[in-house]
């Protein structure tokens, strides 16, 4: 596998984390334009952990997840009573504030005679962990995908657990869910926290892959893109956002000769697709139908006493 494919696959893997992060919130019925903030927090946190504090990667990624999740919970609480559009714009405002704060954030430590650390708008370079330890590109790719598979497994179990069903219930009709005795607030904060942690892990991976992060990377574009992936790929399953990522990043490749018009074509395709399938390709109905293919059909006739005729 050449360097180029490894690079593309690594990108697909990392973007999937943010896409899944936005997807989880979409399940609870909330549109978040701000997941890129937790991606940023995870990136800076993990980068600081390895480059400035000398932590091992695993711990740094966990720290990225915790920072992302923690920040998400902190912002989830004041926005609890906001619904719909108001919530979405609040997430956008928060994400932009985080981005500007990182542009003002300076934390530099002298290591081996040079200053290392986030330097405001000039960014945070030299996150050299994988180079210092000679971890090559393929190994890092495996790390990304093993984490991603773990997350997908997590989603698989979540969708079948009571919590997952509750999330979707809240997404369908919050008031009704509350009337059923579900603690809506607690579940929303939980969803926000998990989503933040997911984005944080993605951010940590990104920081180490590219060795350089700066505030400009984490702007609205990233957030709206990750949201779009779930909506294009479908909200029926966690594979939906991944499909969305594949279509975008994958499509780029096939349209390489038209590279300058890529956005125009992609934008047009997405707009047309959404007219026909407003809940994405793998929407709930399709997933349900596919699921039914694997279920044994019940007995056709009974003799009036519940026994097959």
């Amino acid at each position, binding site marked *: 596998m050449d360097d180029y494919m490894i690079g593309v696959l690594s990108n697909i893997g990392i973007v999937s984390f943010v896409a899944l992060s936005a997807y989880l919130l979409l399940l609870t019925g909330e*549109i978040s334009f701000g997941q890129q903030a937790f991606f940023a927090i995870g990136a800076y946190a993990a980068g600081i952990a390895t480059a400035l504090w000398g932590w091992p990667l695993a711990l740094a990624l966990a720290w990225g997840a915790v920072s992302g999740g923690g920040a998400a919970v902190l912002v989830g609480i004041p926005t609890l009573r*906001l619904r719909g559009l108001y919530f979405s714009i609040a997430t956008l405002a928060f994400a932009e504030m985080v981005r500007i704060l990182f542009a003002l954030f300076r934390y530099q430590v002298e290591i081996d005679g040079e200053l290392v650390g986030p330097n405001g708008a000039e960014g945070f370079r030299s996150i050299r962990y994988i180079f210092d330890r000679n971890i090559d590109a393929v190994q890092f790719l495996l790390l990304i995908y093993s984490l991603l598979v773990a997350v997908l497994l997590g989603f698989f179990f979540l969708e079948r657990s009571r919590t997952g069903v509750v999330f979707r219930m809240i997404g369908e009709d919050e008031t009704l869910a509350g009337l059923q005795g579900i603690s809506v607030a607690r579940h929303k904060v939980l969803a926000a926290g998990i989503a933040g942690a997911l984005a944080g892990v993605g951010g940590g991976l990104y920081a180490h892959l590219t060795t350089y992060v700066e505030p400009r990377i984490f702007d609205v574009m990233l957030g709206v893109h990750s949201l779009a992936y779930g909506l294009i790929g479908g909200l029926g399953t966690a594979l939906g956002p991944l499909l969305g990522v594949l279509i975008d990043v994958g499509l780029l490749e096939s349209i390489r000769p038209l590279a300058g018009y890529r956005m125009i074509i992609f934008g047009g395709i997405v707009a047309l697709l959404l007219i026909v399938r407003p809940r994405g390709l793998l929407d709930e109905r399709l997933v349900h139908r596919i699921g039914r293919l694997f279920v044994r059909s019940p007995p056709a006739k009974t003799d009036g006493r519940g026994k097959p005729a």
Partner: protein
Amino acid sequence: MVDLVQNTIDGLMIGSSYGLLALGFTLIFGVMRRLNLSYGPSVMIGGYLGTVVYLQFGAGPLTVAAAVVVGAAVAGIYVERLCFAPMKAGAAIASMVSSFAIWMQLEQAAILVLPRHTYAFPPLATGAPLELGPFAIRSDHLVMLCSALGLAAAVQLVLYRTRFGLALRAIIGNPVAAHLVGVDVRMVMPLAFAGASAIGGVAGFLVLAVDQQITPMFGMWATLKGLIAMMIGGLGSVPGAVLGGLLLGVIEAQSQWYFGPQIRDLVAYFVLFAFLAIRPRGLVGSMSEASTQKA
């Protein structure tokens, strides 16, 4: 003290343009109940058209302004036809994501036509600033303020004195009822969209002429400023949009003077967040607008 007042004056001037941006945004939202992420980019398309007219033909400010408005309106209709008209009633996020996709499209189209990072834009008015005691008022600021207030007044007139305005208010109030009493909703929507985008176009022209340059970042900038001003003022409210814009302008001017451009943006977002957390209906909006936008 002098600085404070000077900044307030400057802030009110630029705020009037924000108010216009918010006005267009709020009209679309009021009519559609959906967020149009392509609003700023439509205005930017107008701006780029104006730039092309200026650079290719050396046109004067009025012609450029007309080009900007026409470009914005046409882009607005394109967005409406593709992202909003064909969507069924409940597909609010689909419209929004679709408008995001078109935002990307419009941005790339603009960059393809004019690939450089900045282009010159004709100035609004040249001439020495007006001196009012210790305060200075730039002549182009003054033109901007008067144009913005004039247009806002005109919009108010259309809304409250014409049949079209009545139909629009009816739809904003209750789309189903409006349909039931015979308002041709299908006709009003695209016209309202075009009108709102045109208003945005005027705002865009004023800002660009004062800045005397246009960059590809303008689309997102316009969307964000319009959005913040609209939310501060109150969703779906015309006087709210203007008030929100003026307030935002003043806050920004003060922040920039004392703390620099980055803090200025930080404060703007913080004010937005604070309003949403504490008083989501904004300055003058009504609680009924705090509706749920389901998937």
